[in-house]
């Protein structure tokens, strides 16, 4: 007999899948087995077995152990749990196969993109300078006087311990505590001091506000759209199959 272990998965249309496993007397491994074990490792562990002898060895050892499992009558003892495992594996494989069969064209994705173009508007941005102070009083004075005095003069006067400039940062990427204070109709203003920790007080100066302008190019969001559409169709297909089989 060519194969060491013959696995017959018989489909029963009554209640569940019936699994029948038979022992084999002659253990051999062929090239198809090597190919299969390689694919299995890639899919399951994302690991490529480059060595053919190594791949053969894995298959052979598994076969010997599986054969022993059958010889010792352990299959009968564990039949139900094995059946559940196999059903789970087959269901997952079917789902994967179904997903691979569903192809979404660029035309479909472009149609979704244009129909939902608002979602792909480039987000508004701001340029911010943060000034760090050790003392809350200095930070507060800096903030208060920034309404009437230029920032450069205030920097010379209150000497922040650290200064950092962030150019054109997406507002959505800023912490909520800063985001909530940003006014789209204003430029060149400071936010009230934020106490970060003891001896660390930050004052943020909003240099410029850049309103949302233009759209994110289709190519940049194409795959994201395809994934989203894929999920919608897949859920529908899955439901359809389950309903059909339940009838």
């Amino acid at each position, binding site marked *: 007999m060519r194969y060491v272990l013959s696995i017959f998965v018989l489909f029963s249309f009554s209640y569940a899948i019936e699994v029948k496993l038979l022992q084999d007397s002659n253990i051999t491994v062929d090239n198809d087995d090597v190919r299969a074990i390689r694919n299995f490792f890639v899919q399951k562990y994302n690991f490529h077995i480059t060595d053919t002898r190594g791949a053969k060895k894995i298959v052979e050892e598994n076969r010997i152990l599986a054969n022993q499992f059958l010889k010792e009558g352990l299959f009968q003892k564990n039949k139900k749990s094995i059946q559940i495992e196999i059903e789970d594996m087959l269901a997952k494989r079917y789902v994967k196969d179904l997903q691979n069969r569903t192809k979404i064209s660029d035309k479909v994705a472009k149609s*979704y993109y*244009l129909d939902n173009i608002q979602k792909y508007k480039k987000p508004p941005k701001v340029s911010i300078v943060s000034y760090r102070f050790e003392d809350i009083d200095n930070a507060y004075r800096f903030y208060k006087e920034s309404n009437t005095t230029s920032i450069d003069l205030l920097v010379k006067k209150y000497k922040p311990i650290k200064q950092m400039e962030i150019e054109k940062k997406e507002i959505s990427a800023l912490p909520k505590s800063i985001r909530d204070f940003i006014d789209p109709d204003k430029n060149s203003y400071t936010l009230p001091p934020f106490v970060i920790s003891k001896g660390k007080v930050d004052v943020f100066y909003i240099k410029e506000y850049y309103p949302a302008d233009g759209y994110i190019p289709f190519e940049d969001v194409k795959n994201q759209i395809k994934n989203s559409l894929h999920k919608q169709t897949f859920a529908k297909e899955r439901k359809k199959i389950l309903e059909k089989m339940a009838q």
Partner: protein
Amino acid sequence: MIKYVFIIFALLAFFGCESKVEKYEYKDVNISLTPSSKKEALLVQRFAQYWHKRLNGDYNSSYDFELPSQRYLVSLKEYKNVLGLYKGSKADLVHISYPHPDIAIVTRKMRIKNKAFTRLDKWLFIDDNWYHKFYQTALPPIGEEEKFQ
């Protein structure tokens, strides 16, 4: 001999042209504007063809005019169920605006049982052709234009 050759060429030219220009003058669709570009002329043509089919209950054909993304998600059978039978008798294209170069908002006047109703249509330009968006609710897309400003 030259006479016959000329006649053959004339016939070829005549039938060749006829096959390229699709007819879109229908009794139940009126176009109240002159297209300002080739792209707009195509939109007008697609609008006329689409509404002629919808008004005559030819959903098998109108389905092909709907957005590729909608056709991907909604089958022809579901489409027919969603739309039901359209009760209008005449469509009049009155205005087109472009919130985006590939998005057109078409204002149409529909005649339903001797009453006129103004409705908005959304058309998208994908792969050199215009596609219509159908709505899965009974409510028309009010304020659609403002959405894209």
